[in-house]
Protein backbone atom coordinates (compact mmCIF):
# COMPACT_ATOMS: atom_id res chain seq x y z
CA UNK A 1 0.00 0.00 0.00
CA UNK A 2 1.33 3.41 -0.87
CA UNK A 3 2.29 5.73 1.92
CA UNK A 4 -0.30 8.37 1.12
CA UNK A 5 -3.02 5.78 1.03
CA UNK A 6 -2.45 4.56 4.53
CA UNK A 7 -5.18 2.75 6.45
CA UNK A 8 -4.32 5.00 9.39
CA UNK A 9 -6.15 8.22 10.13
CA UNK A 10 -4.06 11.27 9.40
CA UNK A 11 -5.18 14.61 10.75
CA UNK A 12 -3.53 17.58 9.14
CA UNK A 13 -4.03 21.28 9.85
CA UNK A 14 -7.45 20.61 11.27
CA UNK A 15 -9.29 23.69 12.55
CA UNK A 16 -12.81 24.11 13.87
CA UNK A 17 -14.55 27.33 14.83
CA UNK A 18 -17.86 28.13 16.45
CA UNK A 19 -18.61 31.58 15.13
CA UNK A 20 -15.53 33.62 15.82
CA UNK A 21 -14.31 31.24 18.51
CA UNK A 22 -11.68 28.79 17.42
CA UNK A 23 -12.05 25.48 19.24
CA UNK A 24 -9.46 23.41 17.42
CA UNK A 25 -6.42 25.28 16.17
CA UNK A 26 -4.44 23.91 13.26
CA UNK A 27 -4.15 20.43 14.68
CA UNK A 28 -1.75 18.00 13.04
CA UNK A 29 -1.23 14.58 14.60
CA UNK A 30 1.09 11.73 13.84
CA UNK A 31 -1.06 8.99 12.27
CA UNK A 32 -3.81 7.47 14.42
CA UNK A 33 -3.09 3.83 13.76
CA UNK A 34 -5.56 1.28 12.52
CA UNK A 35 -5.54 -1.76 14.78
CA UNK A 36 -4.97 0.33 17.88
CA UNK A 37 -7.12 1.97 20.50
CA UNK A 38 -6.37 5.67 20.72
CA UNK A 39 -7.58 7.57 23.76
CA UNK A 40 -8.37 11.24 23.43
CA UNK A 41 -7.95 12.98 26.77
CA UNK A 42 -7.77 16.51 28.07
CA UNK A 43 -9.48 18.83 30.50
CA UNK A 44 -13.05 20.09 30.03
CA UNK A 45 -13.29 22.41 27.05
CA UNK A 46 -10.08 21.12 25.49
CA UNK A 47 -11.96 20.34 22.28
CA UNK A 48 -12.17 16.54 22.51
CA UNK A 49 -15.81 16.23 21.51
CA UNK A 50 -15.40 18.94 18.90
CA UNK A 51 -12.50 17.05 17.35
CA UNK A 52 -14.44 13.78 17.20
CA UNK A 53 -17.51 15.47 15.72
CA UNK A 54 -15.37 17.24 13.15
CA UNK A 55 -13.79 13.97 12.03
CA UNK A 56 -17.27 12.43 11.92
CA UNK A 57 -18.37 15.20 9.57
CA UNK A 58 -20.86 16.65 12.04
CA UNK A 59 -19.12 20.01 12.20
CA UNK A 60 -17.67 22.22 9.54
CA UNK A 61 -13.90 21.93 9.75
CA UNK A 62 -10.95 22.98 7.64
CA UNK A 63 -7.85 20.93 7.04
CA UNK A 64 -7.95 17.24 6.33
CA UNK A 65 -8.61 13.86 7.94
CA UNK A 66 -7.21 11.32 5.52
CA UNK A 67 -7.92 7.59 5.44
CA UNK A 68 -6.87 5.54 2.42
CA UNK A 69 -6.05 8.79 0.70
CA UNK A 70 -9.57 10.14 1.09
CA UNK A 71 -10.56 13.17 3.12
CA UNK A 72 -13.31 12.40 5.59
CA UNK A 73 -14.09 16.09 5.97
CA UNK A 74 -15.18 16.53 2.37
CA UNK A 75 -16.85 13.17 1.86
CA UNK A 76 -20.55 12.78 1.04
CA UNK A 77 -22.96 11.58 3.73
CA UNK A 78 -23.40 8.10 2.36
CA UNK A 79 -19.74 7.35 1.78
CA UNK A 80 -18.69 8.67 5.17
CA UNK A 81 -21.39 6.84 7.10
CA UNK A 82 -20.25 3.55 5.60
CA UNK A 83 -16.78 4.26 6.93
CA UNK A 84 -17.18 6.19 10.16
CA UNK A 85 -19.47 5.91 13.14
CA UNK A 86 -19.71 8.47 15.90
CA UNK A 87 -21.11 7.63 19.29
CA UNK A 88 -22.50 10.82 20.87
CA UNK A 89 -21.96 11.61 24.51
CA UNK A 90 -25.64 11.99 25.26
CA UNK A 91 -28.60 9.93 24.20
CA UNK A 92 -31.96 11.63 23.65
CA UNK A 93 -34.75 11.00 26.10
CA UNK A 94 -38.44 10.33 25.52
CA UNK A 95 -37.91 8.04 22.56
CA UNK A 96 -40.59 5.41 22.04
CA UNK A 97 -38.41 2.75 20.48
CA UNK A 98 -37.09 -0.48 21.90
CA UNK A 99 -33.34 -1.13 22.11
CA UNK A 100 -33.41 -3.57 19.22
CA UNK A 101 -35.59 -1.29 17.10
CA UNK A 102 -33.19 1.58 17.68
CA UNK A 103 -30.18 -0.51 16.64
CA UNK A 104 -31.97 -1.79 13.54
CA UNK A 105 -33.12 1.76 12.77
CA UNK A 106 -29.52 2.96 12.80
CA UNK A 107 -28.50 0.18 10.46
CA UNK A 108 -31.34 0.96 8.09
CA UNK A 109 -31.21 4.75 8.29
CA UNK A 110 -29.91 4.89 4.77
CA UNK A 111 -30.24 2.38 2.03
CA UNK A 112 -26.86 1.01 1.19
CA UNK A 113 -26.11 -1.14 -1.80
CA UNK A 114 -25.68 -4.78 -0.95
CA UNK A 115 -28.00 -4.47 1.99
CA UNK A 116 -29.82 -7.63 2.80
CA UNK A 117 -33.35 -8.10 4.04
CA UNK A 118 -35.13 -7.49 7.32
CA UNK A 119 -34.05 -10.81 8.84
CA UNK A 120 -30.42 -10.00 8.14
CA UNK A 121 -30.71 -6.57 9.76
CA UNK A 122 -32.44 -8.07 12.76
CA UNK A 123 -29.83 -10.79 13.24
CA UNK A 124 -26.96 -8.38 12.73
CA UNK A 125 -28.45 -6.07 15.40
CA UNK A 126 -28.98 -8.99 17.78
CA UNK A 127 -25.40 -10.15 17.30
CA UNK A 128 -24.18 -6.71 18.38
CA UNK A 129 -26.43 -6.82 21.44
CA UNK A 130 -24.93 -10.22 22.23
CA UNK A 131 -21.45 -8.84 21.81
CA UNK A 132 -22.25 -6.18 24.41
CA UNK A 133 -24.16 -8.64 26.57
CA UNK A 134 -27.42 -6.67 26.52
CA UNK A 135 -29.84 -9.05 24.81
CA UNK A 136 -31.89 -9.09 28.01
CA UNK A 137 -32.99 -5.50 27.35
CA UNK A 138 -33.44 -5.98 23.60
CA UNK A 139 -37.18 -5.40 23.68
CA UNK A 140 -37.24 -2.79 26.44
CA UNK A 141 -38.23 0.72 25.38
CA UNK A 142 -35.38 3.21 25.57
CA UNK A 143 -37.50 5.30 27.95
CA UNK A 144 -37.21 2.68 30.67
CA UNK A 145 -33.47 2.20 30.55
CA UNK A 146 -30.95 3.42 33.05
CA UNK A 147 -28.25 5.82 31.91
CA UNK A 148 -25.72 3.03 31.63
CA UNK A 149 -28.05 0.77 29.64
CA UNK A 150 -28.79 3.65 27.31
CA UNK A 151 -25.08 4.17 26.80
CA UNK A 152 -24.63 0.51 25.92
CA UNK A 153 -27.54 0.80 23.52
CA UNK A 154 -25.93 3.83 21.93
CA UNK A 155 -22.68 1.91 21.54
CA UNK A 156 -24.62 -0.92 19.90
CA UNK A 157 -26.03 1.62 17.44
CA UNK A 158 -22.49 2.72 16.62
CA UNK A 159 -21.20 -0.81 16.09
CA UNK A 160 -24.06 -2.27 14.09
CA UNK A 161 -23.00 -0.99 10.67
CA UNK A 162 -19.49 -2.38 11.31
CA UNK A 163 -17.67 0.82 10.38
CA UNK A 164 -13.90 0.82 9.99
CA UNK A 165 -13.52 4.00 12.04
CA UNK A 166 -15.14 4.25 15.46
CA UNK A 167 -15.28 7.59 17.24
CA UNK A 168 -16.60 7.03 20.74
CA UNK A 169 -17.34 10.01 22.94
CA UNK A 170 -17.01 8.87 26.55
CA UNK A 171 -18.39 5.38 25.92
CA UNK A 172 -18.03 4.29 29.54
CA UNK A 173 -18.93 7.42 31.52
CA UNK A 174 -22.23 6.03 32.82
CA UNK A 175 -21.19 2.40 33.20
CA UNK A 176 -20.54 0.29 36.27
CA UNK A 177 -17.12 -1.37 36.59
CA UNK A 178 -18.20 -4.65 35.08
CA UNK A 179 -19.67 -3.00 31.98
CA UNK A 180 -16.67 -0.70 31.65
CA UNK A 181 -14.56 -3.81 31.29
CA UNK A 182 -17.05 -5.37 28.86
CA UNK A 183 -17.10 -2.26 26.69
CA UNK A 184 -13.37 -1.65 26.71
CA UNK A 185 -12.73 -5.33 25.91
CA UNK A 186 -15.08 -5.07 22.95
CA UNK A 187 -13.32 -1.88 21.91
CA UNK A 188 -9.98 -3.69 22.04
CA UNK A 189 -11.35 -6.58 19.99
CA UNK A 190 -12.61 -4.15 17.36
CA UNK A 191 -9.19 -2.52 17.18
CA UNK A 192 -7.56 -5.92 16.96
CA UNK A 193 -9.75 -6.57 13.93
CA UNK A 194 -8.00 -3.67 12.21
CA UNK A 195 -10.31 -0.78 12.93
CA UNK A 196 -9.38 2.74 13.86
CA UNK A 197 -10.80 3.36 17.32
CA UNK A 198 -10.69 6.75 19.00
CA UNK A 199 -12.26 7.08 22.46
CA UNK A 200 -12.69 10.20 24.51
CA UNK A 201 -11.97 9.09 28.06
CA UNK A 202 -11.94 11.11 31.25
CA UNK A 203 -10.42 8.50 33.49
CA UNK A 204 -6.68 8.59 32.78
CA UNK A 205 -6.05 5.30 34.58
CA UNK A 206 -8.64 3.72 32.30
CA UNK A 207 -7.06 5.36 29.27
CA UNK A 208 -3.64 4.06 30.29
CA UNK A 209 -5.06 0.59 30.94
CA UNK A 210 -6.87 0.13 27.62
CA UNK A 211 -5.36 2.45 25.03
CA UNK A 212 -2.33 1.83 22.86
CA UNK A 213 -1.72 5.49 22.38
CA UNK A 214 -3.01 8.63 24.01
CA UNK A 215 -3.64 12.03 22.47
CA UNK A 216 -3.62 14.81 25.05
CA UNK A 217 -5.48 17.92 23.94
CA UNK A 218 -5.26 21.22 25.73
CA UNK A 219 -7.00 24.44 24.66
CA UNK A 220 -7.76 23.01 21.23
CA UNK A 221 -4.17 22.14 20.46
CA UNK A 222 -2.04 19.05 20.75
CA UNK A 223 -0.13 18.78 23.99
CA UNK A 224 1.28 15.32 23.40
CA UNK A 225 0.63 12.16 21.40
CA UNK A 226 2.35 9.08 22.70
CA UNK A 227 2.15 5.79 24.52
CA UNK A 228 0.42 5.69 27.91
CA UNK A 229 3.84 5.74 29.57
CA UNK A 230 4.81 8.85 27.67
CA UNK A 231 1.47 10.61 28.07
CA UNK A 232 0.34 9.93 31.62
CA UNK A 233 3.01 11.64 33.69
CA UNK A 234 2.99 13.93 36.71
CA UNK A 235 4.29 16.67 34.45
CA UNK A 236 1.41 16.33 32.00
CA UNK A 237 -1.09 16.22 34.88
CA UNK A 238 0.24 19.43 36.33
CA UNK A 239 0.63 21.28 33.03
CA UNK A 240 -2.63 20.21 31.41
CA UNK A 241 -4.98 19.37 34.26
CA UNK A 242 -3.45 21.69 36.87
CA UNK A 243 -3.40 18.98 39.52
CA UNK A 244 -0.62 17.55 41.57
CA UNK A 245 -0.64 13.80 41.11
CA UNK A 246 1.47 10.71 41.37
CA UNK A 247 1.49 8.09 38.66
CA UNK A 248 2.07 4.57 39.96
CA UNK A 249 2.47 1.31 38.18
CA UNK A 250 0.45 -1.49 39.76
CA UNK A 251 0.73 -4.90 38.13
CA UNK A 252 1.96 -3.27 34.98
CA UNK A 253 -0.91 -0.76 34.76
CA UNK A 254 -0.54 2.94 35.37
CA UNK A 255 -2.69 4.51 38.05
CA UNK A 256 -3.18 8.19 38.64
CA UNK A 257 -3.43 9.28 42.26
CA UNK A 258 -4.46 12.90 42.48
CA UNK A 259 -3.18 14.75 45.51
CA UNK A 260 -4.69 18.14 44.98
CA UNK A 261 -5.17 21.14 42.75
CA UNK A 262 -2.24 23.33 41.94
Amino acid sequence: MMAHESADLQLEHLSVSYGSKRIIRDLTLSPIKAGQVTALVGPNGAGKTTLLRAIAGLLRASGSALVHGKNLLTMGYGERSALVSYMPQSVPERVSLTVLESVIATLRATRRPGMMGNAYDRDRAISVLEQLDITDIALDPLDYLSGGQRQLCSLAQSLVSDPSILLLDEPTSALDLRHQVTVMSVVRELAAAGKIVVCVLHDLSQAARWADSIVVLNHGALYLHGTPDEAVTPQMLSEVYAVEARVESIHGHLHVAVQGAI
Partner: protein
Amino acid sequence: MTDNLTGRPLNVSPHGASVAARYDAFVRKRIAICVALFVIAVAGFLLDLVIGPSDLGVHQVWAALTDSGQASQAATSIVWQVRLPQACLAALVGVALSLAGAEMQTILNNPLASPFTLGVSSAAAFGAALAIIIGAGLPGISQVWIVPANAFIFATISVMLLQAIARVRGSGIDTLVLCGIALFFTFNALTALLQFVASQQALQQLVFWIMGSLARADWQKVTVLALVVAVVTPFSFAASRQLTALRLGEDRARSAGVNVTRLRFMSLLRVSLLTAAAMAFVGTIGFVGLAGPHIARLLLGEDHRFFLPASAMTGAAIMALASIASKAILPGVLIPIGIVTALIGLPVFFSLILRPRRLA
Protein backbone atom coordinates in the same frame (compact mmCIF):
# COMPACT_ATOMS: atom_id res chain seq x y z
CA MET B 1 -25.94 -16.81 7.17
CA THR B 2 -22.82 -14.75 6.69
CA ASP B 3 -22.27 -11.18 7.65
CA ASN B 4 -22.12 -9.25 4.42
CA LEU B 5 -20.52 -6.30 6.16
CA THR B 6 -17.60 -8.19 7.65
CA GLY B 7 -17.65 -11.47 5.79
CA ARG B 8 -17.73 -13.28 9.10
CA PRO B 9 -20.57 -15.65 9.87
CA LEU B 10 -23.39 -14.08 11.82
CA ASN B 11 -23.37 -15.96 15.06
CA VAL B 12 -26.78 -15.74 16.57
CA SER B 13 -26.90 -17.99 19.58
CA PRO B 14 -30.01 -19.92 20.60
CA HIS B 15 -30.72 -17.09 23.01
CA GLY B 16 -30.29 -14.61 20.16
CA ALA B 17 -32.69 -16.65 18.07
CA SER B 18 -35.29 -16.44 20.82
CA VAL B 19 -34.83 -12.67 20.90
CA ALA B 20 -35.33 -12.67 17.13
CA ALA B 21 -38.54 -14.66 17.53
CA ARG B 22 -39.80 -12.26 20.17
CA TYR B 23 -38.91 -9.32 17.95
CA ASP B 24 -40.79 -10.87 15.03
CA ALA B 25 -43.84 -11.35 17.22
CA PHE B 26 -43.46 -7.75 18.31
CA VAL B 27 -43.37 -6.53 14.68
CA ARG B 28 -46.43 -8.65 13.85
CA LYS B 29 -48.21 -7.03 16.77
CA ARG B 30 -47.40 -3.59 15.40
CA ILE B 31 -48.67 -4.54 11.97
CA ALA B 32 -51.82 -5.90 13.61
CA ILE B 33 -52.31 -2.58 15.42
CA CYS B 34 -51.92 -0.71 12.12
CA VAL B 35 -54.51 -2.96 10.52
CA ALA B 36 -56.83 -2.52 13.49
CA LEU B 37 -56.51 1.26 13.22
CA PHE B 38 -57.29 1.02 9.52
CA VAL B 39 -60.39 -1.04 10.28
CA ILE B 40 -61.47 1.50 12.91
CA ALA B 41 -60.96 4.35 10.45
CA VAL B 42 -62.97 2.58 7.77
CA ALA B 43 -65.70 1.71 10.24
CA GLY B 44 -65.80 5.33 11.35
CA PHE B 45 -66.01 6.44 7.74
CA LEU B 46 -68.92 4.09 7.03
CA LEU B 47 -70.74 5.12 10.18
CA ASP B 48 -70.19 8.73 9.19
CA LEU B 49 -72.01 7.97 5.91
CA VAL B 50 -74.97 6.43 7.66
CA ILE B 51 -75.50 9.17 10.22
CA GLY B 52 -77.00 12.49 9.29
CA PRO B 53 -79.90 14.86 9.81
CA SER B 54 -82.02 13.26 7.10
CA ASP B 55 -82.96 9.91 8.53
CA LEU B 56 -81.70 7.49 5.91
CA GLY B 57 -81.38 3.89 6.98
CA VAL B 58 -78.33 1.76 6.32
CA HIS B 59 -80.21 0.08 3.46
CA GLN B 60 -81.03 3.33 1.74
CA VAL B 61 -77.47 4.59 2.07
CA TRP B 62 -76.19 1.31 0.69
CA ALA B 63 -78.69 1.38 -2.16
CA ALA B 64 -77.74 4.94 -2.99
CA LEU B 65 -74.03 4.12 -2.85
CA THR B 66 -74.28 1.08 -5.07
CA ASP B 67 -76.68 2.93 -7.35
CA SER B 68 -78.89 -0.14 -7.53
CA GLY B 69 -81.93 1.86 -8.52
CA GLN B 70 -83.76 1.09 -5.30
CA ALA B 71 -82.85 4.35 -3.61
CA SER B 72 -84.97 7.44 -3.87
CA GLN B 73 -83.79 10.44 -5.82
CA ALA B 74 -83.44 12.38 -2.58
CA ALA B 75 -81.46 9.67 -0.84
CA THR B 76 -79.07 9.34 -3.77
CA SER B 77 -78.56 13.04 -3.87
CA ILE B 78 -77.98 13.32 -0.11
CA VAL B 79 -75.51 10.45 -0.07
CA TRP B 80 -73.60 11.50 -3.16
CA GLN B 81 -73.70 15.27 -2.80
CA VAL B 82 -73.54 15.70 0.97
CA ARG B 83 -72.54 12.70 3.01
CA LEU B 84 -69.94 11.06 0.83
CA PRO B 85 -67.97 14.23 0.10
CA GLN B 86 -68.17 15.22 3.76
CA ALA B 87 -67.05 11.82 4.98
CA CYS B 88 -64.24 11.71 2.41
CA LEU B 89 -63.12 15.21 3.28
CA ALA B 90 -63.20 14.36 7.00
CA ALA B 91 -61.06 11.27 6.50
CA LEU B 92 -58.61 13.04 4.19
CA VAL B 93 -58.25 16.00 6.52
CA GLY B 94 -57.60 13.60 9.39
CA VAL B 95 -54.94 11.79 7.38
CA ALA B 96 -53.29 15.01 6.20
CA LEU B 97 -53.20 16.82 9.54
CA SER B 98 -52.20 13.83 11.60
CA LEU B 99 -49.44 12.84 9.21
CA ALA B 100 -48.22 16.44 9.15
CA GLY B 101 -48.27 16.53 12.95
CA ALA B 102 -46.35 13.27 13.18
CA GLU B 103 -43.61 14.50 10.87
CA MET B 104 -43.47 17.85 12.63
CA GLN B 105 -43.10 16.27 16.04
CA THR B 106 -40.24 14.15 14.78
CA ILE B 107 -38.27 16.73 12.85
CA LEU B 108 -38.69 19.34 15.57
CA ASN B 109 -38.11 16.78 18.32
CA ASN B 110 -41.02 18.28 20.19
CA PRO B 111 -44.18 16.46 21.27
CA LEU B 112 -46.09 19.74 21.32
CA ALA B 113 -45.38 20.52 17.68
CA SER B 114 -48.40 20.43 15.40
CA PRO B 115 -49.72 22.52 12.53
CA PHE B 116 -51.93 24.27 15.04
CA THR B 117 -49.42 25.04 17.78
CA LEU B 118 -46.79 26.31 15.37
CA GLY B 119 -48.96 28.90 13.71
CA VAL B 120 -49.83 27.19 10.43
CA SER B 121 -53.54 27.21 11.26
CA SER B 122 -53.36 30.81 12.39
CA ALA B 123 -51.73 31.76 9.12
CA ALA B 124 -54.44 29.93 7.20
CA ALA B 125 -57.08 31.73 9.24
CA PHE B 126 -55.44 35.06 8.48
CA GLY B 127 -55.43 34.25 4.77
CA ALA B 128 -59.09 33.36 4.96
CA ALA B 129 -59.80 36.55 6.89
CA LEU B 130 -58.12 38.63 4.20
CA ALA B 131 -60.38 37.05 1.61
CA ILE B 132 -63.58 37.18 3.62
CA ILE B 133 -63.20 40.64 5.15
CA ILE B 134 -61.21 42.66 2.63
CA GLY B 135 -61.81 40.50 -0.40
CA ALA B 136 -58.11 40.42 -1.04
CA GLY B 137 -56.85 37.46 -2.98
CA LEU B 138 -54.71 36.47 -5.89
CA PRO B 139 -55.94 37.80 -9.22
CA GLY B 140 -57.41 35.23 -11.55
CA ILE B 141 -58.85 33.07 -8.81
CA SER B 142 -62.59 32.65 -8.90
CA GLN B 143 -64.70 33.92 -6.03
CA VAL B 144 -65.49 30.38 -4.94
CA TRP B 145 -61.85 29.49 -4.44
CA ILE B 146 -60.58 32.75 -3.05
CA VAL B 147 -60.90 31.75 0.62
CA PRO B 148 -59.27 28.32 0.33
CA ALA B 149 -56.62 29.74 -2.01
CA ASN B 150 -55.73 32.45 0.48
CA ALA B 151 -55.72 30.03 3.39
CA PHE B 152 -53.46 27.72 1.40
CA ILE B 153 -51.07 30.48 0.46
CA PHE B 154 -50.71 31.83 3.99
CA ALA B 155 -50.35 28.39 5.54
CA THR B 156 -47.59 27.71 3.04
CA ILE B 157 -45.97 31.06 3.74
CA SER B 158 -45.91 30.34 7.47
CA VAL B 159 -44.11 27.03 6.94
CA MET B 160 -41.74 28.68 4.49
CA LEU B 161 -40.95 31.26 7.16
CA LEU B 162 -40.13 28.45 9.57
CA GLN B 163 -38.11 26.91 6.77
CA ALA B 164 -36.16 30.11 6.28
CA ILE B 165 -35.46 30.34 9.99
CA ALA B 166 -34.25 26.75 9.95
CA ARG B 167 -31.85 27.59 7.15
CA VAL B 168 -30.20 30.37 9.11
CA ARG B 169 -27.00 28.80 10.26
CA GLY B 170 -26.69 28.11 13.94
CA SER B 171 -30.36 28.35 14.79
CA GLY B 172 -31.36 25.25 16.67
CA ILE B 173 -34.55 23.29 16.68
CA ASP B 174 -35.79 25.00 19.81
CA THR B 175 -35.47 28.35 18.04
CA LEU B 176 -37.63 26.96 15.28
CA VAL B 177 -40.32 25.92 17.74
CA LEU B 178 -40.22 29.32 19.43
CA CYS B 179 -40.52 31.04 16.06
CA GLY B 180 -43.53 28.86 15.26
CA ILE B 181 -45.15 29.99 18.49
CA ALA B 182 -44.32 33.60 17.62
CA LEU B 183 -45.99 33.07 14.23
CA PHE B 184 -49.03 31.69 16.01
CA PHE B 185 -49.42 34.88 18.03
CA THR B 186 -48.57 37.19 15.13
CA PHE B 187 -51.15 35.76 12.77
CA ASN B 188 -53.76 35.59 15.53
CA ALA B 189 -53.19 39.28 16.23
CA LEU B 190 -53.40 40.16 12.54
CA THR B 191 -56.64 38.18 12.24
CA ALA B 192 -58.02 39.93 15.30
CA LEU B 193 -57.14 43.26 13.72
CA LEU B 194 -59.13 42.33 10.62
CA GLN B 195 -62.00 41.14 12.78
CA PHE B 196 -61.95 44.50 14.51
CA VAL B 197 -62.65 46.35 11.26
CA ALA B 198 -64.91 43.70 9.76
CA SER B 199 -68.60 44.13 9.02
CA GLN B 200 -71.04 42.11 11.09
CA GLN B 201 -71.72 39.75 8.22
CA ALA B 202 -68.11 39.15 7.28
CA LEU B 203 -67.22 38.64 10.91
CA GLN B 204 -69.82 35.92 11.26
CA GLN B 205 -68.58 34.22 8.12
CA LEU B 206 -65.00 34.32 9.37
CA VAL B 207 -65.84 33.01 12.82
CA PHE B 208 -67.65 30.14 11.18
CA TRP B 209 -64.67 29.47 8.92
CA ILE B 210 -62.25 29.49 11.84
CA MET B 211 -64.39 27.03 13.78
CA GLY B 212 -63.74 24.52 11.06
CA SER B 213 -66.54 22.91 9.14
CA LEU B 214 -67.18 20.09 6.75
CA ALA B 215 -70.32 21.77 5.47
CA ARG B 216 -68.39 23.26 2.55
CA ALA B 217 -67.37 19.83 1.30
CA ASP B 218 -67.80 19.10 -2.38
CA TRP B 219 -66.21 16.71 -4.85
CA GLN B 220 -63.79 19.30 -6.19
CA LYS B 221 -62.32 19.86 -2.75
CA VAL B 222 -62.20 16.15 -2.05
CA THR B 223 -60.37 15.59 -5.31
CA VAL B 224 -57.81 18.31 -4.69
CA LEU B 225 -57.08 17.15 -1.15
CA ALA B 226 -57.02 13.50 -2.23
CA LEU B 227 -54.45 14.39 -4.87
CA VAL B 228 -52.27 16.25 -2.38
CA VAL B 229 -52.44 13.38 0.10
CA ALA B 230 -51.79 10.82 -2.63
CA VAL B 231 -48.75 12.72 -3.89
CA VAL B 232 -47.23 13.59 -0.51
CA THR B 233 -47.83 10.40 1.49
CA PRO B 234 -45.48 8.14 -0.50
CA PHE B 235 -42.64 10.62 0.06
CA SER B 236 -43.49 10.68 3.75
CA PHE B 237 -43.41 6.92 4.00
CA ALA B 238 -40.23 6.76 1.95
CA ALA B 239 -38.54 8.96 4.54
CA SER B 240 -39.68 6.77 7.42
CA ARG B 241 -36.30 5.10 8.02
CA GLN B 242 -34.52 8.42 8.12
CA LEU B 243 -37.16 9.89 10.41
CA THR B 244 -36.83 6.94 12.79
CA ALA B 245 -33.06 7.43 12.86
CA LEU B 246 -33.58 11.12 13.62
CA ARG B 247 -35.44 10.14 16.78
CA LEU B 248 -32.12 8.77 18.05
CA GLY B 249 -30.63 12.25 17.94
CA GLU B 250 -29.35 14.48 15.22
CA ASP B 251 -25.71 13.40 15.61
CA ARG B 252 -26.68 9.75 15.54
CA ALA B 253 -28.81 10.21 12.43
CA ARG B 254 -26.16 12.19 10.61
CA SER B 255 -23.49 9.73 11.59
CA ALA B 256 -25.69 6.99 10.15
CA GLY B 257 -25.71 8.84 6.84
CA VAL B 258 -28.89 10.90 7.05
CA ASN B 259 -28.67 14.37 5.57
CA VAL B 260 -30.69 15.92 8.37
CA THR B 261 -30.83 19.41 6.86
CA ARG B 262 -32.33 18.03 3.69
CA LEU B 263 -34.65 15.69 5.60
CA ARG B 264 -36.00 18.64 7.62
CA PHE B 265 -36.44 20.75 4.51
CA MET B 266 -38.32 18.07 2.60
CA SER B 267 -40.37 17.16 5.63
CA LEU B 268 -41.44 20.75 6.28
CA LEU B 269 -42.35 20.99 2.62
CA ARG B 270 -44.63 17.97 2.99
CA VAL B 271 -46.06 19.38 6.19
CA SER B 272 -46.85 22.67 4.52
CA LEU B 273 -48.61 21.02 1.58
CA LEU B 274 -50.66 18.68 3.75
CA THR B 275 -51.76 21.23 6.32
CA ALA B 276 -52.34 24.05 3.86
CA ALA B 277 -54.49 21.88 1.63
CA ALA B 278 -56.46 20.45 4.55
CA MET B 279 -57.06 23.75 6.30
CA ALA B 280 -57.93 25.57 3.11
CA PHE B 281 -61.07 23.48 2.76
CA VAL B 282 -62.26 22.91 6.29
CA GLY B 283 -60.87 25.78 8.31
CA THR B 284 -58.76 25.45 11.40
CA ILE B 285 -59.01 22.07 13.03
CA GLY B 286 -56.48 21.98 15.78
CA PHE B 287 -56.58 18.82 17.70
CA VAL B 288 -56.02 16.09 15.13
CA GLY B 289 -52.48 17.09 14.26
CA LEU B 290 -51.46 16.89 17.90
CA ALA B 291 -53.49 13.97 19.18
CA GLY B 292 -53.36 11.64 16.16
CA PRO B 293 -49.58 11.14 16.34
CA HIS B 294 -49.63 10.90 20.13
CA ILE B 295 -52.22 8.15 20.12
CA ALA B 296 -50.30 6.31 17.40
CA ARG B 297 -47.04 6.66 19.31
CA LEU B 298 -48.56 5.36 22.52
CA LEU B 299 -50.03 2.39 20.69
CA LEU B 300 -47.02 1.27 18.68
CA GLY B 301 -43.97 3.42 19.28
CA GLU B 302 -41.93 5.47 16.91
CA ASP B 303 -40.67 3.12 14.25
CA HIS B 304 -41.92 5.41 11.49
CA ARG B 305 -42.68 2.50 9.17
CA PHE B 306 -45.62 1.90 11.50
CA PHE B 307 -45.88 5.23 13.24
CA LEU B 308 -46.63 7.29 10.11
CA PRO B 309 -49.39 5.07 8.68
CA ALA B 310 -50.82 4.60 12.17
CA SER B 311 -50.88 8.37 12.69
CA ALA B 312 -52.67 8.81 9.38
CA MET B 313 -55.24 6.15 10.32
CA THR B 314 -55.71 7.57 13.80
CA GLY B 315 -56.26 11.01 12.29
CA ALA B 316 -58.87 9.66 9.88
CA ALA B 317 -60.61 7.82 12.71
CA ILE B 318 -60.66 10.89 14.97
CA MET B 319 -62.10 13.01 12.18
CA ALA B 320 -64.74 10.41 11.33
CA LEU B 321 -65.79 10.15 14.97
CA ALA B 322 -65.83 13.93 15.27
CA SER B 323 -67.92 14.21 12.13
CA ILE B 324 -70.38 11.65 13.50
CA ALA B 325 -70.56 13.49 16.81
CA SER B 326 -71.00 16.85 15.12
CA LYS B 327 -74.14 15.47 13.50
CA ALA B 328 -75.37 13.39 16.41
CA ILE B 329 -74.93 15.62 19.48
CA LEU B 330 -77.77 17.98 18.58
CA PRO B 331 -80.10 16.31 16.09
CA GLY B 332 -80.62 18.54 13.10
CA VAL B 333 -77.70 20.81 13.97
CA LEU B 334 -74.30 20.45 12.40
CA ILE B 335 -71.87 21.58 15.08
CA PRO B 336 -68.64 22.91 13.56
CA ILE B 337 -66.22 20.01 13.46
CA GLY B 338 -63.30 22.02 14.79
CA ILE B 339 -65.13 22.30 18.10
CA VAL B 340 -66.16 18.67 18.21
CA THR B 341 -62.73 17.33 17.30
CA ALA B 342 -61.23 18.69 20.47
CA LEU B 343 -64.16 17.63 22.61
CA ILE B 344 -64.18 14.08 21.23
CA GLY B 345 -60.45 13.66 21.09
CA LEU B 346 -59.70 14.96 24.56
CA PRO B 347 -61.07 12.06 26.64
CA VAL B 348 -59.29 9.52 24.43
CA PHE B 349 -56.13 11.55 24.56
CA PHE B 350 -56.17 12.00 28.32
CA SER B 351 -56.94 8.37 29.00
CA LEU B 352 -53.95 7.43 26.89
CA ILE B 353 -51.41 9.88 28.23
CA LEU B 354 -52.45 9.43 31.84
CA ARG B 355 -52.67 5.65 31.79
CA PRO B 356 -50.10 3.79 33.87
CA ARG B 357 -47.14 2.98 31.69
CA ARG B 358 -46.42 -0.65 31.07
CA LEU B 359 -43.53 -2.45 29.54
CA ALA B 360 -43.97 -3.59 25.98
